């Protein structure tokens, strides 16, 4: 109960800060829009071999990947915000109170999840005029998957931020992790185009399964094994990531 209350407190506060910082919101909206409007049109011809014969087909393949990438990258880079708050003494001010340590982590991560889901909703809505179609129930499942991805990625990022401790070091570390994860999950181009060895490598990347699950949901194929596999994998990984990060938080930020 206390955990819920405290998480809600921290979450509210983080949302308030986000609303008061319009630059974040502007960047958060502009970035995915650029991908959607400036990159996606190339895809009709590029994805022809994957069975994209119309813009609608291209967007059906591309949008779920873009959303997954947003959740993954957006989440992985939130550690910087935590470092800023640590430097400003804001975290320390919470630490002297009896507020739950896990709530300090969860409240922040959930703000990130909500922000990313709003971005994702925006992208989805804007893709509709281009012919993207998706059933509301499947979209809900897709967003659950996205939310889990974002929660996992931000927890990992907070953990890394605590371990690494500085902006200068966190950048390269996050990039080193994010780049292969994103490339090996076929976020931008489906890995069906990839040579065999690359696909074998991707099989071992949980994010690949998350993207495959997203694509299946957008393709209207909720029964595909990729969907339940993705949900199960991400749920498990998210639980692990939150547990790991919360433990670090509790230990470093007593």
């Amino acid at each position: 109960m206390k955990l819920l209350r405290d998480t809600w407190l921290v979450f509210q506060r983080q949302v308030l800060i986000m609303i008061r910082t319009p630059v974040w919101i502007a960047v958060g909206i502009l970035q995915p829009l650029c991908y959607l409007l400036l990159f996606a049109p190339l895809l009709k011809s590029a994805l022809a071999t994957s069975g994209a014969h119309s813009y609608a087909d291209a967007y059906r393949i591309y949008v779920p990947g873009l959303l997954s990438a947003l959740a993954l990258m957006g989440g992985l880079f939130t550690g910087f915000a935590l470092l800023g708050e640590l430097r400003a003494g804001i975290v320390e001010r919470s630490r002297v109170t009896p507020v739950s340590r896990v709530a300090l982590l969860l409240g922040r991560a959930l703000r990130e999840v909500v922000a990313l889901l709003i971005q994702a909703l925006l992208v989805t809505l804007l893709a509709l005029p281009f012919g993207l179609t998706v059933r509301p129930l499947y979209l809900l499942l897709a967003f659950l998957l996205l939310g889990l991805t974002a929660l996992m990625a931000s927890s990992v990022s907070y953990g890394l931020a605590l371990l690494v401790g500085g902006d200068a070091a966190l950048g390269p570390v996050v990039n080193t992790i994010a780049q292969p994860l994103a490339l090996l999950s076929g976020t931008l181009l489906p890995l069906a185009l990839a040579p065999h060895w690359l696909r074998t490598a991707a099989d071992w990347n949980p994010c690949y399964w998350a993207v495959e699950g997203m694509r299946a949901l957008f393709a209207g194929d909720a029964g595909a094994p990729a969907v339940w596999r993705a949900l199960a994998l991400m749920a498990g990984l998210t639980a692990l990531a939150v547990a790991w990060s919360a433990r670090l938080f509790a230990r470093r930020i007593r």
Partner: protein
Amino acid sequence: MIVTQGLRKSFATRGGRGTPVDAVRGIDLTVGPGEIFGVLGPNGAGKTTTLRMLATLVRPDGGEAVVAGADLRAEPATVRRRIGYVAQGGGTADAVTAREELVLQARMYGIGKAEAVARAGEAMEAFGLGEFGDRPCGTYSGGQRRRVDLALGVIHRPRLLFLDEPTVGLDPPSRAQVWEQIRRLRADGMTVLVSTHYLEEADGLCDRIGIVDHGRVVAEGTPEQLKKEIAGDAVGLVLRPGDRPRAEEVLRPLEWVSGVETAGGDGADDGNEGDGQPPELRLYVDDAPSALPQLLRVLQAAGVDPVLVQLRRPSLDDVFLARTGRPLDQD
């Protein structure tokens, strides 16, 4: 209110290699209820680490402490509920207002929403935040920010408040205001532990002080007691460049001179002024008025002609100098 014994903490150097740095080597302090206690020491003496340990932010490596009636190591959660802590840099977010911060802080202490809003209103009044407290914190001056930090630190009405360098970087009027607020808190029955490297702050604000150097308490008492312990008076000699070695040579052996130290200036005897004050050779004697003529005779015989001779009552700087062999305000 606080009793510590042999509190220590060392930090691993980056990467965990190399020898750990002993930040605090053994702090023994006793702070009584209702007093303003000052931890005085130079930068890097271990003041902040000491405060952070007592405020449950850093786990001590060794030693014992009872803080606000609870054992620091065994019951940190109880300690946490009973104390307030204000870090040196404060900790407000630029985008939110003081009132919002106050409500949040109260709620983090488990206070209900209505009560938290009421307390934030009271605190706004008590700390004079009314004029600016509904604007974002990012727009405040240093003094305004500090008042907000203080209000945040006591929103849950703790018995004991820790303030880490509460007036660092403030202009004199703001500093006076902060002192006034701290005295008001004591009048309300709160015990306040302040760390500082300002002599005037230790002398003027604190009821009792502990002088800390290299992670140890080298003296503890009221400012008056500590100054009295410096036997006799201090005499400051400003000398011509180059005269100092000769002067020290003839003065040190004298029986009636109990100490010879260098203070002020930039430490180097090059005639350049480090901090606007000429370097000074400081002597401690039992009775300055009778010692002065003798002193001048000795110096003259040695061919040293002082530029300036000043008599001074011992200050806390002299106490620090006497206990550590170094002046405090060298940074």
